């Protein structure tokens, strides 16, 4: 891992089959996307795979469910991690001892996941002071850490580490940057008695992320500065108490794990807003008929979001073991409770001076959102059969999860979810080829996985809609008036369920003389991921006619009570979070690892994958075209049962030659990454609604006659046949180089890396246009010290 010279956890992803080395992208959330095709367009409607990948650090899951930070600024949504799981930018790789990334079927010990598990173990042990300084094209990173043996006999060890990253999104622009500070203090204390050994780990961690960008005042017309700042401080305190009997018994171990975390999140944005028109601005806080004012032509908007997410968890678990001559069995069990709540004040701003004129929400305190509690329990048996030199390892488990204290209106209230998961590994007796054993292993796994919705999904903001009833912008200021009918709607989808994913995979392993080939086929089909989908809402309001009103005679502006009116019904499609997102992942992963060849001390690793990923809606979609026909919006909404989505495919092979020359203290590797093909195919849609709804809420079938109706024909969505043709991007090869040289008993290490030292990507044609691809190398170097 050190040889990779990573800046953040994102950089480790290139080690996975199908992974491709990428340059750091610190200007947006780095979300994890296991077993997904390369070249996918990220879309928040398909973020459940990232949200459903659990990050567990030293036994405690990083819980982001209480994150509710948000911004109305559409240009910054890529920096908001709410609902996207763990932002891998925030994870430093120093202090990490090992990482296990379970892409297949994880043990039922781990829950709150749909797509995978990242299990991180941090270093524990006394040693020299270690320091690392890394610089690359965009960033500088500094780390220092040390392990102390306080007791002198390894019974009490304290590890401490601090890491600082300063990254510029574009090296030419020092006004936009990303900074990260992480630090941890980790204590491990052991007591060894005649009956048992007790280990107590207590870890305190801090992680800070600071994003900032502002404009150059010298380039702004009035030398004004508009800025965006997002800071996140997270403190965690985790404790693990482990009891292991010294004498052989049925009880193997007992564990108690607790986790506490508190985040201090602040998003601040300031913008000089100059309006281009006189804009009526609804700021009503009550439902019903409201008189409203107008936005000034020039103002300073100040927007701030305060989040204070707090999480707590407690887990008790144990392991029992039963033995026999041709059968041994272990039983794992546990109970886990966790809660999360955001104590922040939420968005704090003057609603009459909004960042963007289109503001259909009002400030709400995050602390008004109820806490979420979750209780889960699991039981897993691990049975090993031995027969005729065959070994069969069957792991079968069941995990139960439910949310507690949830309002009974929710379908999720009191609803338990059961995740059965199986893994079977069959080791065949070795065959001997030239007196060397040839090992075979076959494995298969299948299981259900469940991720509960996050707080932002269960408790969305209220939606404010304002309908013009009287618009009277008189030449005389005193006579001006505007009246709207305000609707305040609860956008909660009480029918929201947990996202569930069923995965299965088969794997075959062959090993011979230290060489190993492993091939895995997998398929997972998640049909109820979280996304926003449309719901039809009906509104009624009055249109007042002030043409008969004489303000000069009355000496005042008209009031709606004075005026005749007509009732109007309006249909709108509003978004709520639903389980309408489908992600189908399918593919083959392979790894071939050679033993280190003698003389040249080089190991060859070939890994790669074929991935096919389909993202689409899984429920019919309501849609209303945004046009005005004959003076009003359409009075119909169409229901379309076609699939709005894409299929992505990628095939890649990474060939890594890594050479270790201990006598020279030299380690270098050359990685040849071939992305043979990436492709995208938009799923076919005909754009003809199956049904439509009128203003009375009645649903009618959409027939051929509708196509000649001046209004109903507008519901047809037009697509071009060529949009559905698969678009292939042909092969792309890059050569990456990494080298590390150590001096003075490995106390000083110098390392360098170059991404895309060579880059070969032939031109290709699309629709008769030649597309040329080129790329510039990305490089960095680092200094490691052990004092």
């Amino acid at each position: 891992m050190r040889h990779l010279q990573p800046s953040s956890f994102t950089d480790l992803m290139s080690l996975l089959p199908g992974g491709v080395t990428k340059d750091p992208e610190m200007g947006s959330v780095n979300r994890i996307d296991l077993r997904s095709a390369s070249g996918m367009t990220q879309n928040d409607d398909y973020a459940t795979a990232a949200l459903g990948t659990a990050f567990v650090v030293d036994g405690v899951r990083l819980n982001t469910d209480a994150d509710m930070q948000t911004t109305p600024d559409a240009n910054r949504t890529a920096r908001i991690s709410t609902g996207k799981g763990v932002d891998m930018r925030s994870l430093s790789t120093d202090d990490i001892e090992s990482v296990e990334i379970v892409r297949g079927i994880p043990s039922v010990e781990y829950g709150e996941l749909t797509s995978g598990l990242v299990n991180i173990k941090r270093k524990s042990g006394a040693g020299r002071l270690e320091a690392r300084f890394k610089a690359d094209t965009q960033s500088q990173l500094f780390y220092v850490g040390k392990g102390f043996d306080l007791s002198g006999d390894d019974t009490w060890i304290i590890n401490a580490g601090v890491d600082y990253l300063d990254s510029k999104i574009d090296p030419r622009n020092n006004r936009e940057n990303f900074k990260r500070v992480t630090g941890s203090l980790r204590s491990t204390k052991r007591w060894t008695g005649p009956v048992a050994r007790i280990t107590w780990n207590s870890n305190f961690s801090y992680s800070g992320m600071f994003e900032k960008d502002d404009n150059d005042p010298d380039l702004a017309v009035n030398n004004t500065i508009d800025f965006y700042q997002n800071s996140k401080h997270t403190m965690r305190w985790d404790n693990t108490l482990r009891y292991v009997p010294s004498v052989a018994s049925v009880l193997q171990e007992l564990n108690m794990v607790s986790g506490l975390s508190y985040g201090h999140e602040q998003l601040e944005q300031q913008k000089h807003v100059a309006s281009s028109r006189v804009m009526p601005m609804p700021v009503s806080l009550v439902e019903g008929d409201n008189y409203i004012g107008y936005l000034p032509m020039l103002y300073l908007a100040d927007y701030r979001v305060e989040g204070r997410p707090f999480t707590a968890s407690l887990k008790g678990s144990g392991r029992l073991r039963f033995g026999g001559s041709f059968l041994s069995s272990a039983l794992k069990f546990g109970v886990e409770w966790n809660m999360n709540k955001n104590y922040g004040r939420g968005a704090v701003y003057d609603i009459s001076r909004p960042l963007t004129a289109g503001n259909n929400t009002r400030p709400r305190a995050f602390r008004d959102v109820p806490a979420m509690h979750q209780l889960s329990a699991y039981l897993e048996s691990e049975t090993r059969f031995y027969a005729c030199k065959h070994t069969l390892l069957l792991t079968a488990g069941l995990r139960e999860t439910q949310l507690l204290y949830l309002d009974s209106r929710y379908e999720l209230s009191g609803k338990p979810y059961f995740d059965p998961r199986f893994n079977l590994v069959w080791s065949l007796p070795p065959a001997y080829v030239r007196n060397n054993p040839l090992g075979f292993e076959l494995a298969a796994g299948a299981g259900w996985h469940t991720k509960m919705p996050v707080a932002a999904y269960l408790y969305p903001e209220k939606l404010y809609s304002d309908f013009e009833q009287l618009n009277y912008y008189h030449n005389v200021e005193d006579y001006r008036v505007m009246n709207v009918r305000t609707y305040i709607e609860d956008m909660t989808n009480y029918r929201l369920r947990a996202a569930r994913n069923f995965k299965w995979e088969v794997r075959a392993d062959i090993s011979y003389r230290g060489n190993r080939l492993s091939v895995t086929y997998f398929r997972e089909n998640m049909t109820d991921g979280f996304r926003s989908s449309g719901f039809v809402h009906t509104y009624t309001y009055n249109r007042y006619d002030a043409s008969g009103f004489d303000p000069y005679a009355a000496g005042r502006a008209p009031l709606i009570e004075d005026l005749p009116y007509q009732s109007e019904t309006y249909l709108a499609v509003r978004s709520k979070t639903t389980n309408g997102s489908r992600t189908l992942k399918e593919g083959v992963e392979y790894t071939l690892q050679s033993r280190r060849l003698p003389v040249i001390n080089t190991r060859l690793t070939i890994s790669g994958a074929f991935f096919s990923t389909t993202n689409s809606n899984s429920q019919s979609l309501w849609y209303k075209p945004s046009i005005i026909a004959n003076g009003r919006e359409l009075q119909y909404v169409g229901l379309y049962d076609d699939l709005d989505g894409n299929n992505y495919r990628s095939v890649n092979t990474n060939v890594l030659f890594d050479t270790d020359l201990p006598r020279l203290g030299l380690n270098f590797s050359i990685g040849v990454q071939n992305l043979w093909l990436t492709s995208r195919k938009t799923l076919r849609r005909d754009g003809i609604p199956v049904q439509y709804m009128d203003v009375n809420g009645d649903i009618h079938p959409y027939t051929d006659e509708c196509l000649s109706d001046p209004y109903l024909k507008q519901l047809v969505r037009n697509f071009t046949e060529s949009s559905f043709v698969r678009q292939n991007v042909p092969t792309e090869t890059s050569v990456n180089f990494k080298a590390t040289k150590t001096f003075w008993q490995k106390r000083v290490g110098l390392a360098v890396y170059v991404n895309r030292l060579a880059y070969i990507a032939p031109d290709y044609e699309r629709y008769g246009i030649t597309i040329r691809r080129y790329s510039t190398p990305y490089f960095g170097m680092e200094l490691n010290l052990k004092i």
Partner: protein
Amino acid sequence: MTSNKIQIKNLFLSVALCSAMGLSVASCSDDDNTVVTYPVVIAPTYPAELPSSYTVESGTITYKELNSGRTYTFELPLTDSDVIPAGTYDIDGQMEVSFVNDEGTSVTRTLRAVASQQVISSTAQSASLKWFFYNPSNTLVFGEIYFAGSLNAAGTNGLYDTYFTIYNNTDEVQYADGLAIVESKLLNTDANVIITPANQREANFTVQTVYVIPGSGQDVAIAPGESIKIVDQAIDWTAQVPGALNHTDADFEWYDESTSASVKDTDNPDVPNLDKWYSYSPTIWIASNQCNRSYALVRFPEGMTAEQYLAEYDGTYKYISSVTQKEMTGTKCYLVKYDWIIDGVNLCPVESWIQGALSTSVDASYAAISEAKTDKNRFGKKFVRKVAGVSAAGNTVLMDTNDSAKDFEIVSAK
């Protein structure tokens, strides 16, 4: 050469021109040997309405070389002595033809043709010209167009104190009732190739907004030499931002009722609103701030209703994107027949101009507010039709040659 065609109004200027001409002739004569000329050859197409037998009464074709700026004018019909040097030319032709029409009477009509960037070289000497009937006697025309707007309070962008006027260019009272104002769907800056025949620039005008002046026939009278002003927001903008315009005197405003939370319009009770037959935008319509679309005044056939129009003239079309060469679909648009258009204008900044959304028969060129599309100097400037002269009845006649580059000038809006 062309000196005899230049209308010289000023004696001093003519002296200056003559001396300049003398210099150029002198310099030409020095390297006469090296200039290769080619015969002027045109490949004409004629409008379908023109019968096969007709007589050319008179006419000229002007070649303007784009690099040197030189113009060469030839009388029609062309003779063997009409030659031009190699170069890239904009070609402009006009001729009077007489023929016997379907009713059996002999008529004389004007034909015009324009072509841009025609290369004349040793391998290509033929220029294709598409002639169309030219009828500059429009009744109602765009008088002024102010779509860039004044500078906003921060000085960063344009305000929407935008407007246009419709001018009565005749000596009789004209009625604007039922007149539609339409904005092109196509940008004059894109090179997309339209596949659908009905949406070809020469076939129909593809539009994305249709606003109609209300009235039952004789409600909106415009006296000869007078105009009506139609504004986005009928507001005294001077009270909002210094230097902006006062629109409380507008004759109409286009008021857009909006159910969106983000954008709402204002409605001045003293200024009537336009009827809104169709708009691609569910909220407000903003006329092209970069002034790179085309606009037309449309007189629908008698009895046309909004519903009938919406049902029958859907303009959804297919095109090849000039950027990706991919076939795409253009949606949210309607078709307007050229027979219905009484005046049209292409607007575009000079650097961005590719092709007009209107047929060359409606506008042979375009009016430009600036060289570059994001030039901030465009704010506060408007297109104003030039004055052609005074009619017999004493009314100001605005220039309307269906050639916006010649018809409009740019002046300050204040």
